[in-house]
């Protein structure tokens, strides 16, 4: 057992802050709402605090690693490297806001004990994925995430939910199986391989080039399922039947981000950019990402259901991260990494607002969104900021990503990347601006201009409005204060320096 210094216990504590609440909540009977709310909030806040401690520690040069032998020659490793910390911070903060949101969103009688139990399990899996020090640990938490998410997708228990759940399970289990074979093959080929030593596989390129390429293809295929890269994206729009908090956290941050994060880890920390370029793996990855970006936006254009349109836009936006990974230049890497955070906060805001709309006004289709801006100004304000972020309009966070990806593409000599990005942002504008116009500039039927708004109390419940506004603000601040030392951008830049610092 690793010596039990604080350094090695923190990662485990981070896991426990959501594992313990999960166990407790499972046991709590349904009517005990206050106790459940307390446990939930305590877990979420504690996790954010612990992340803060970790950030301070890592900045101070602290080493945090927890290791235990799992299989012969394979350890279960939880390591806090810079990239994991980036993802952990995103997950813990957004889990806090989504817990608050879920508490407000779910009414009594919706089996909330079961919901929050699996909800906390999902976050445990996400944190596990983030901190995984080697591929086997990653795989274990990756599959745990699939398992913990399924009951949430089918939470409503109606036919549509089950169909969505079945599609999700079909894709994820296949992805997991492919990943298992790849991990086992890599283990056989290269022995126990850890993420930490930045590209431990470099030495193997000599005689194992073909099998390394094949393993890379399998790894990316397994991960691409969760990143919803075309043609493996089919499950994401179908999984939108889940309740809003699930769509918000899981299908905008945790689940889909696990796939993208996996690709980032495989390319940067396992293969390393040099080896990836040497085996010419990045260009097909870029092509795949480009196709997905455009395809996702095109399909989003045709959807009238708000959540399905957001789902397709997630499909497209996730591939920005994969694009960033494919571009092997310093700014490109920064762009990809920073979008890990930006896409998260933007998409979570959009899903909160979509959830609020559905809950307060019963509006789920875009055609029904006439003039909702004045009836729910705060929520729709956050929605607008996040939507502008998706398009990449300055000064939102989305623009910072688009700028870095574009510049990175040019630096890496892949000039065509700009046109993909711009085509995508035009398409994003094409399917987001009309929605914004409809929200603010179209009058609610039968309402004279200048007449006072109908109801004032649509945004009385703080549990629902607060998270939306908070994340909406963060989209603006992540863009405006991009230069600040602790901003996502400078954080991503410092990591990129290490990964691609030529």
């Amino acid at each position, binding site marked *: 057992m690793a010596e039990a210094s604080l350094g090695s216990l923190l990662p485990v504590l981070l896991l426990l802050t959501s594992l313990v609440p999960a166990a407790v909540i*499972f046991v709590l009977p349904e009517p005990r709402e206050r106790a459940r709310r307390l446990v939930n909030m305590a877990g979420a806040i504690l996790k954010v605090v612990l992340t803060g401690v970790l950030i301070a520690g890592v900045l101070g040069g602290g080493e945090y690693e927890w290791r235990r032998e799992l*299989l012969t020659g394979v350890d279960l490793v939880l390591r806090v490297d810079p990239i994991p910390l980036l993802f952990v911070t995103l997950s813990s903060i957004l889990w806090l806001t989504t817990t608050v949101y879920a508490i407000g969103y779910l009414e009594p009688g*919706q089996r909330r004990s079961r919901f929050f139990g699996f909800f906390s399990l999902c976050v445990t899996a996400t944190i596990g994925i983030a901190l995984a020090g080697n591929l086997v640990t990653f795989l274990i938490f990756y599959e745990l995430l699939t*398992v913990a998410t399924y009951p949430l997708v089918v939470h409503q228990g*109606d036919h549509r939910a089950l169909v969505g759940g079945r599609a999700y399970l079909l894709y994820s289990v296949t992805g997991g*199986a492919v990943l*298992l074979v790849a991990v086992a093959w890599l283990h056989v080929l290269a022995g126990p391989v850890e993420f930490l030593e930045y590209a431990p596989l470099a030495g193997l390129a000599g005689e194992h080039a073909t099998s390394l390429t094949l393993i890379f293809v399998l790894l990316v295929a397994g991960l691409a399922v969760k990143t919803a890269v075309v043609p493996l994206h089919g499950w994401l729009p179908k999984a939108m039947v889940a309740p809003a908090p699930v769509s918000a956290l899981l299908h905008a941050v945790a689940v889909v981000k696990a796939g993208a994060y996996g690709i980032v880890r495989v390319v940067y920390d396992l293969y390393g950019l040099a080896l990836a370029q040497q085996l010419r793996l990045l260009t097909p990855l870029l092509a795949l990402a480009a196709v997905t970006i455009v395809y996702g936006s095109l399909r989003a254009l045709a959807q009238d259901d708000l959540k399905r349109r957001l789902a397709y836009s997630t499909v497209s936006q996730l591939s920005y991260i994969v694009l960033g990974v494919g571009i092997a230049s310093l700014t490109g890497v920064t762009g990809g990494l920073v979008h890990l955070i930006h896409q998260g906060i933007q998409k979570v805001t959009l899903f909160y607002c979509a959830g609020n709309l559905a809950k307060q006004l019963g509006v789920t289709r875009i055609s029904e969104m006439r003039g909702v801006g004045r009836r729910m100004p705060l929520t729709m304000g956050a929605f607008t900021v996040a939507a502008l972020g998706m398009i990449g309009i300055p000064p939102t966070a989305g623009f910072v990503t688009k700028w870095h990806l574009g510049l990175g593409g040019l630096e890496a000599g892949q000039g065509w990347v700009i046109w993909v990005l711009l085509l995508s942002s035009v398409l994003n504008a094409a399917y987001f601006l009309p929605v914004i116009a409809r929200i603010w500039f179209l009058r609610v039927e039968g309402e004279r201009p200048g007449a006072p708004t109908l109801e004032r109390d649509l945004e009385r419940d703080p549990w629902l409005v607060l998270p939306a506004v908070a994340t909406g603000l963060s989209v603006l601040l992540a863009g405006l204060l991009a230069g600040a030392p602790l901003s996502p951008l400078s954080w991503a830049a410092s990591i990129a320096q290490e990964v691609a610092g030529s």
Partner: protein
Amino acid sequence: MSLVVLALPLLGAGVVALVAARWRSPLTLTVLVLTLLSGALMAQGVGSGGARVVTLAAVGLPAAVVVEDGLSAALVLVSSGLALATALFGVLHRDAGAGPPAAYWPLSLALLAGLHGLFLAGDLLTAYLWLEVVAVAGAALVAWRGDGARMAAATRYFYAELVASVTFLAGTALVWSATGTVVITDLAGQVGDSTGGRLGLALLTTGLLLKVPVVPLHFWLPAAHTLAPSAVSPLLSGLVVKSAFVILLRTWVGGVPEVGQPTLALLLGVLGAVAVLWGGLTALRVERAKVLVAYSTVSQLGLLLLAVPLAVAGSGEAWLGAAFHAIAHALPKAALLMAVALLAHTMGGGTVDRLTGAAARRPVAAFAAGLAALSLVGLPPTGGFVAKWYLVVASLTTGQWWWAATIVAGSFLTAAYLARLLQRFFRGAGRTVAGESEPAERGRADVVALGLAAAGLLLGLYPNALLGLLDVGAPLGVMARG
């Protein structure tokens, strides 16, 4: 130590048979606890002291050998634990309104003794004897207080076991005449190319394959495991099916791997692969939940058989994977069977459709079923994953990647038919109806099922202890080299 583990259940069975009905269940439970403790002691002994072979030379009879290695110690420990849990389940869960009949207690102890005998058997003749005990005890347990269908199933089961035992005996005799010994480990290099010996091995293996069973010799299993009472099927599906496999593994991997190379190993592998796919496919289509679980057993046993060609090709991981899978399958399978029995009891019907919305009506049992399903599919962090990992690594190291593909396809099929079952639990279980008509039931029996499922999960989280134990005395040690 191994003799105590054998004697306790055997004598216990005798004593319990004599005692009055009222005292039988507590007495059996105590005997079971004692057996479990002695099993634990033995495992501890083997773990620290290494493998031991005890030869009981009886005049006039070929030497009877008892092998106390990692595999047998682990299996003895698990089987006594599982037997205890099943007995507890039998007491707690009033299947048809009344607890198990008086005959259940002595028979289950006899069965346990037989199982221990098989796990520890080092020579073919003793193996034959214990096979007889398991056959009779098992069939009798299935047949208790049964209606026509259950009696037919029990009879078919008994006859199948009988044919298997007899062919095994004939095979043993031939091998004995060809090699002059019945001790498995001494067989190495003896058989060579003597036709009698090879014929004997063929007969012997046929008997074992019928006992395991492997497709196409699985004709007796679905009826026997489905119609068996809920306090018996966990024992059958979890343990009895593994006992014959242990003998097969010891003979072909520990005993005469060179004879099996490469054609027989390939044949066994193919039979295993067919079992995996056929079992999975059928499980996808059957109506009743217990039949689904029975065919799942057929499929998972096929997976076990895949390890033989890998181990024979010299991969230590295959032996470890097979041994681990034998255990990591037993616990969740028993838990799943118990959970299905409980849910069927609450929902008033055993078919998959009747179990709709079970998550709301009996959450703990549903959760146990879900947890067990994870292990059976082999998703991390469960024990099933560890077994699958070793089997896949074994197939990749020995270059026989097609077995890895079968394993992945098998786990995909398992996921498919278990998802079919679990998905039913969630249907209509989204919203609690205002005046909840049937309040969620919580029985103590659910906790037993949950405990077993959790044990399956624990195996995944802390596999090292078991892995270390299993590696002791394994023909091609992995840990030493790992």
